[in-house]
């Protein structure tokens, strides 16, 4: 059934609006993780303009872009569109062998993690540029899955926290506390 759906989706050139929106959201997260549209365009083998147009909504993502995105993020094509729990295809990446092992383990377990969780954790790895021990990655995958189920995320790292405002001098804070007392 899954392969039929995959074949159907791949055979059509444009995606259904819901699918297109999922691909667009995944692309935005991938850009956040990679740091720039240029880096993502290079990874996907498309122009930066194509990436920009899809993200801004000026054009809808097609099947080819979705397929390339699925491949680059290590998520099964159909799972990228559905976001449903799936046994995930592992794209081996020599930089993250422990992560690949954890994804494979999670996929083979009785409670597989969703494509979105895999995508999130893979982005996490790309961003941090370090391969944690496999059990740590498995912990992150399970956490990401729980967050998705609780509708709390997961999210990629946010913008850098702005430099905090300088705090009031200690003497001033103490005087305030003294007055309150």
């Amino acid at each position, binding site marked *: 059934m899954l392969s039929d759906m995959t074949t159907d989706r791949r055979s059509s050139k444009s995606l259904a609006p819901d699918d297109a929106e999922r691909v667009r959201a995944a692309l935005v997260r991938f850009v956040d993780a990679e740091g720039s549209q240029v880096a993502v365009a290079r990874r996907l083998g498309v122009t930066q303009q194509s990436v920009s147009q899809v993200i801004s909504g000026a054009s809808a993502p097609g099947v080819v872009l979705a397929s390339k995105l699925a491949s680059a993020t290590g998520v099964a094509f159909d799972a990228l569109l559905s976001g449903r729990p799936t046994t995930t295809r592992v794209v081996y990446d020599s930089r993250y062998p422990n992560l690949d092992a954890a994804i494979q383990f999670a996929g083979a377990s009785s409670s597989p993690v969703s494509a979105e969780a895999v995508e*999130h954790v893979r982005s*996490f790895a790309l*961003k*941090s*540029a*370090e391969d944690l021990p496999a059990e740590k990655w498995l*912990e*992150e995958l399970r*956490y*990401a899955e729980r*967050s998705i189920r609780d509708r*709390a*995320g*997961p*999210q*990629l*790292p*946010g*913008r*850098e*926290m702005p*430099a*905090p405002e*300088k*705090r009031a*001098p*200690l*003497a001033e*804070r*103490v*005087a305030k*506390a*003294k007055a*309150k*007392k």
Partner: protein
Amino acid sequence: MSDPPSTLSGMDTIEAEAEGILRGAGFDPEDPPTIEELAHAVVERVVPHHGISSAARWVGSTRELWINPRLSPRRRAFSIAHELAERHLSRLGYEGEDVEARANAIGAALLVPAPALRFALRQIGRRLPELSDVFDVSQSIVALRLGEVTGSPLALVMDHRVAVRGEPFAWPSAARLVAIAGGREAVPDGIVVEKISDARRRAVVKVA
């Protein structure tokens, strides 16, 4: 839980390490910055990240710090302080078994440096709620720092755990301290119990 709880050793070193971190970043321990200010001064990037399972995590060999934004501001501040202290210990090559406890102690000293606490004590006394507001930390941290900086023996009872600070004192066993703090056992002569108002089931047991 039956042995008397022991205090953290080497407090002089801990104060010196914390003051060293602050001075090294260009801050005055007598008028300390917020921990976010300190983090921005010593870390390349501090980034909120909803997706991490822990309170905070270093990435890129401690160049960047990810912070879980779901934590309360005071819990977040303590997590940042702990991570900065742990990074400092790691850079010193410290590998003792008590590395987490030591990072907690140095982290607390970054939030409430000894010279700043002494100044506040002279002005407003030892009331935990006021000191907690001045340093923007939990009352538990203020209590521990009071023991560390003044040397007054005290035990912080956190549900079923006990942390002891200050000069050596003949404390009852940890189990008895928990019972005393919880009102299940009479308070012995020479000891007073102060409830902590910003955390349930926490109390400070002090020498009267």
